[in-house]
């Protein structure tokens, strides 16, 4: 089940793929910044502020759907006995860790955007509120992971936590958006960008989504790799711990491997 999966050093090809993933996403992001800052036109009402549109929605998309989704799905895969493998635990952890950064960035870019647009850092808008709750859910997951325990117990516990929290996300989403929409007055101007988004802007935005997703994928691979390496270290440490543990007592008189039992 949990046979020690030992990642060999990355093959040349893997290294190359990962590296180009990093380079591509970096170039993509640089391109987005360039397009966003210099090529696309400023907005009529929002002026240069509109340029945040190329960063903030892609970040939010990654945080909300990609990161959390991957974490929940891989947790489910860990829980399902047929597909159980340490890889899914690793992936869930990596995704949640990178995801929490993106969620924080969503909040940060949104707040920075909100300050000039709304005149305040924060409003109790549906999306904002559910993003804040999502951040707390993710922090809770990470806090749970940090509780000292054996790898198996930690994997099980955090997979369950991810699933239990995961089923809540849609409920949060609906209830929070009804909360806003069913309420009498939307005192806050909703950040509906003009539907006349086109040309360079649309392409830049699309590129933003792609580049941000690639960046996420790259970070995810790195975190996953780090988790895997940490597990290799754990396995080595376990080997050492095993021989240290054996040294606490004399050698077994029937050779190890044969169950000491009736008739032996």
């Amino acid at each position, binding site marked *: 089940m949990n046979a020690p999966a030992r990642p060999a050093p990355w093959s040349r090809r893997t290294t190359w793929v990962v590296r180009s993933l990093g380079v591509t996403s970096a170039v993509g992001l640089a391109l987005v910044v360039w397009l966003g800052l210099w090529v696309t036109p400023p907005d009529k009402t929002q002026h240069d502020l509109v340029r945040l549109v190329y960063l903030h929605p892609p970040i939010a998309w990654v945080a909300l759907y990609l990161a959390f989704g991957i974490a929940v799905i891989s947790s489910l895969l860990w829980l399902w006995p047929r597909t159980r493998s340490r890889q899914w635990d690793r992936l869930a952890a990596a995704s949640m860790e990178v995801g929490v950064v993106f969620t924080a960035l969503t909040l940060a870019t949104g707040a920075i955007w909100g300050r000039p647009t709304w005149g305040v850092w924060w409003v109790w808008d549906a999306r904002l509120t559910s993003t804040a709750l999502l951040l707390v859910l993710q922090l809770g997951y990470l806090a749970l992971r940090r*509780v000292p325990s054996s790898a198996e117990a930690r994997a099980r516990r955090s997979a369950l936590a991810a699933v239990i929290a995961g089923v809540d996300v849609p409920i949060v989403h609906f*209830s929070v958006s*009804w909360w806003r929409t069913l309420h009498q007055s939307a005192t806050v101007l909703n950040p509906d960008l003009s539907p006349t988004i086109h040309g360079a802007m649309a392409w830049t935005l699309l590129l933003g989504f792609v580049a941000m997703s690639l960046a996420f994928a790259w970070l995810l691979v790195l975190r996953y790799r780090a988790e895997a390496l940490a597990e290799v270290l754990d396995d080595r440490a376990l080997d050492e711990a095993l021989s240290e543990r054996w040294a606490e007592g004399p050698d077994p008189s029937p050779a190890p491997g044969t169950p000491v039992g009736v008739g032996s």
Partner: protein
Amino acid sequence: MWRDALLVAAKDLRIEARSRVVLNQVAPFAVLVLVLFALALGPDRGPLRQAAPGLFWVAVLFASVLAVQRSAAVETTDSSRDGLRLSGIDPAGAFLGKAAAVALELLVLEVVVGAGALVLFGSSVRSPGALVAASLAGTAGLAAAGTLYGALSTGTRMRETLLPLLFLPVAAPVLLAGTRAWQAALGTMASSAGDPWVRILLVFAAVYLALGVVVFGALQEAS
């Protein structure tokens, strides 16, 4: 499963009947939360009456954290650690039993807190049926989700702090929907459409009850 659920619920309720923790400590605590809010929000009556439904549900939420903590403590303090697991009880039954006991305790508590909120903030009830429906559905959800998280944080030796952190954000929809449903039932809100909110509460309860029945066994192993 049902037999085990009954057995566990009866045990938890007997312990509660004997120690009176929820009745004598958690219920006053919930009323206290109401009073503290009244203090924090200032002495003006208008805003307070507006806020009554929300404050009721905040108080219930915090009280449910304590009730769940108590319910988990019964299984883990000192000596009874591992007791439930060793007893060979069906995990789904254990989950339903514990959740049912918590729900029952919370319902009693809500009567107290609800009465407190109505009196303190001087609200009047427009449609009591809706009020009760929302409370029942919300309570079932809180008890189910709470019991799940109680088991999750049990093995960690940090139950006191981990449980509220994990449980409260998940319970946020109950707070929200419960508040709205109460607002509709009390008529403090312009729109009186409480029904969709009750439906959210029902969905929440159903989802977590089902989830609990399925995963509680795995949860108990995770320590």
